[in-house]
């Protein structure tokens, strides 16, 4: 009968644990902004930094709302990169009336089903990282994103390749919705631009690219394009150089991490050099970026990963929208619907990764895209990378 005892003691213990959790009181005019990103598992490396970026923004930009008498808290949720958890969290978020906006997600695969839930209660969602066209093409009022779409960024890359006089290209992607999405549109546009695509390969491999590199090196294309994240791309690029490949490397905004230089070092500079497209401008264009990187390092003792700055901006937009909606509501807590509207009504909001005005489906109107060249093998000098091309592109409707 020990079993019953242990069962009940378990229950009692859980009960006490939750008594604490349940009783967290609410002051009046207390509002919350939720983040949803993978905080556990192997995608947590990016997910945690999205949360940290948002946390930092709340800390630095929460002033105006605090002056108006609001107490703004961050409610970070872990979606585990899993749609089930994301949806459950979304329902929990929706059920908490204090939450007025959601910053998230990292995976489009989680964002799409979760935002169906936000949609049912008109809760504003600013996405820092979801590039899948379907995120916004559903036309939900609540859903906005501050990153470029796959079908834009891939095009930027392909147009840049054409400008560089690239005749042949080998496309590799990481088999995630993000990487493959960009790579598909890169291929499509590259073919339209008259560039010969030697190969189009996806790989979940993170370490050993030897096998994949055989057909790459054999064709000796002018450019190798990688759709995916820096920690994978840099390993591939390094191994390709070691195999004697001398052409151009190109990647997307997932490549914008000093980890790339740590991994690949000088191999990024040699040969045809390494380029990446991004909406997140360098310090020379957006002064805020440099300060953000410094503050981030000071607070978390780590370099920001890709999308951390976008996490910061998503939070900044949410804060501004809540502020505007609150002002319109006599400094009282605004409704979710009002906040959702306020996000769309923002005009030329100056963030650290760009200036944002959302179009009627929630894509940034005319985003600025930069193509940046890696200039130094030293990871500490990552922010000195040079802009080689700036493009202003409106997203497809």
């Amino acid at each position: 009968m020990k079993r019953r005892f242990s069962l009940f003691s378990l229950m009692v213990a859980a009960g006490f644990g939750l008594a604490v959790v349940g009783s967290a009181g609410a002051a009046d005019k207390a509002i919350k902004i939720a983040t949803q990103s993978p905080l556990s598992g192997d995608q947590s490396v990016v997910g945690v930094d999205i949360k940290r970026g948002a946390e930092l923004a709340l800390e630095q930009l929460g002033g105006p709302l605090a002056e108006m008498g609001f107490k703004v808290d961050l409610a970070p949720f872990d979606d585990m990169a899993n749609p089930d958890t994301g949806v459950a969290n979304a329902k929990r978020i929706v059920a908490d009336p204090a939450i007025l906006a959601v910053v998230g997600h990292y995976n489009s695969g989680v964002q799409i089903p979760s935002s169906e839930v936000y949609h049912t209660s008109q809760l504003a969602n600013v996405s820092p990282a979801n590039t899948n066209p379907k995120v916004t093409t559903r036309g939900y009022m609540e859903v906005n994103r501050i990153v470029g779409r796959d079908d834009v960024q891939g095009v930027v890359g392909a147009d840049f390749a054409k400008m560089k006089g690239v005749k042949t290209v080998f496309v590799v992607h990481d088999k995630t919705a993000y990487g493959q999405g960009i790579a598909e549109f890169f291929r499509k546009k590259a073919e339209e631009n008259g560039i010969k695509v030697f190969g189009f390969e996806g790989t979940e491999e993170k370490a050993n690219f030897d096998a994949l590199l055989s057909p790459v090196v054999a064709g000796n294309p002018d450019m190798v394009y990688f759709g995916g994240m820096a920690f994978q791309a840099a390993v591939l690029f390094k191994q390709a150089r070691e195999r004697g490949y001398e052409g151009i490397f190109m990647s997307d905004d997932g490549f914008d991490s000093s980890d790339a230089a740590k991994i690949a070092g000088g191999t990024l500079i040699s040969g045809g050099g390494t380029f990446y497209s991004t909406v997140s401008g360098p310090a020379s264009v957006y002064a805020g970026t440099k300060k953000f990187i410094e503050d981030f390092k000071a607070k978390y003792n780590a370099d920001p990963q890709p999308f951390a700055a976008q996490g910061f901006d998503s939070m900044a937009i949410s804060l501004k929208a809540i502020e505007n909606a609150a002002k319109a509501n006599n400094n009282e807590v605004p409704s979710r619907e009002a906040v959702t509207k306020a996000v769309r009504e923002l005009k030329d909001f100056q963030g650290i990764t760009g200036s944002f005005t959302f179009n009627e489906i929630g894509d940034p109107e005319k985003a600025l895209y930069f193509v940046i060249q890696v200039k130094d093998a030293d990871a500490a000098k990552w922010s000195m990378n040079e802009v080689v091309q700036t493009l202003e592109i409106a997203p497809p409707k």
Partner: protein
Amino acid sequence: MSSFSFKDAFDKVNQGPLPYLIVFAHIVTGTLLVYFQPRSNLAFLVLMSSFLSLYFFNTSNRFKITAAVVMTLLIMPILGVRNIFYLEVIFQISVFAALALGLNIVVGFAGLLDLGYVAFYAVGAYLWAFFGSQQFFVLPYAPGTQPSDLPFLLAGDFFYLFMMLGVIVAAMTGILLGLPVLRVRGDYLAIVTLGFGEVIRVLANNLDKPLNFTNGPQGITPIQRPSMPDWVVDWFNTIFGPLVGHEVNTSHMYNLWFYILALMVIMVIVFVTKRLDDSAMGRAWTAVREDETAAIAQGIPLVKTKLSAFAVGASFAGIMGVLLAASRTFISPESFSFMQSIGVLSMVILGGSGSIPGVILGAATITILNLQVLQGFSLYLNELRQSDAIIPIINFAWSDLSTQLDPAKYQRLLFGLILILMMIFRPQGLIPAKRRERKLALEKTE
């Protein structure tokens, strides 16, 4: 020692009319708590734990069944639509309970460790995702590049047919996998099934070329749901509207409907499992589990026995996959990672492998831990961190607590600990299977 005195006290209470009173009070308290505190985790746990007292206290079967039906079909739905997060929690509990019951047949009854169980779940989910969406017309397009105005292949109401088909297709997949691998011994089998799980996930991730069957990592959306007539929503609103307190919309009704479907599947599974367990097949499974060599010597056809366990277990996962695809309207390979398989296995092990109530308890515990307790605790820590509070005795400011210590981030650590500790201290699970006791009882009556 304390456990003995506890047992005595429990036995004293657990007789006569008193248990009825306690269970009734528990349910009513839980219901009222959740009704008036719709966002309190504690209240929800009190309510959920009333299932435990219903199970453990000595009441008549009729009372148990009536109470369970009232709880699952009346109280839960009403409280669920009041706070749709709870509806999601109980929906996921029922989904995972069904999955765990299916895996329980393979692991608990037949003793075959299957580490790739979500593969069958994926088969079911992709089956309906393909036929119940526009995917058929997306075949020639690369993922992401298709036009958005494609027609749907089948109407949403085919969903019910595909629940049946899901059973058949998943069972066939189980047999196809089982035929070659079931000749191998237990631990080889574990690793082959692990590999198979990965193969299915990789296939789902890669079958977007040359023909785009699965849309690759971007996943398939929108997937259709069966139709929900307006009168159902109206009807629900008229009857329960006053209790719920707000207008229930179609999307909430869908949540409810899928929850009820999942419950029905669970009932079928429990029924089938019980019947199978009492049948010659069930005895064969047990024999194979306990001692393969002896089982062969007894003339039990080894491969056929194992295969049937595999097929039955797989079919339950298949039907839940179809259900999942429709309820989420979105499916991507991320839902079918190895982590999911381990999650379901943890449920079976925690609850008690081979025990139906145990497995359900395991599914409920882990789902609640995952969705409510860990996240809730992390949020609470985060609130403390943002406040000026300090830990009284050691004078430690909460705001200095590292965010690295958030419990929600360490789900794997928790699963791992559960598996290790259960294996060392309680390998039979929280509610162990009652096989032996019942066998003795049967012998007496015979």
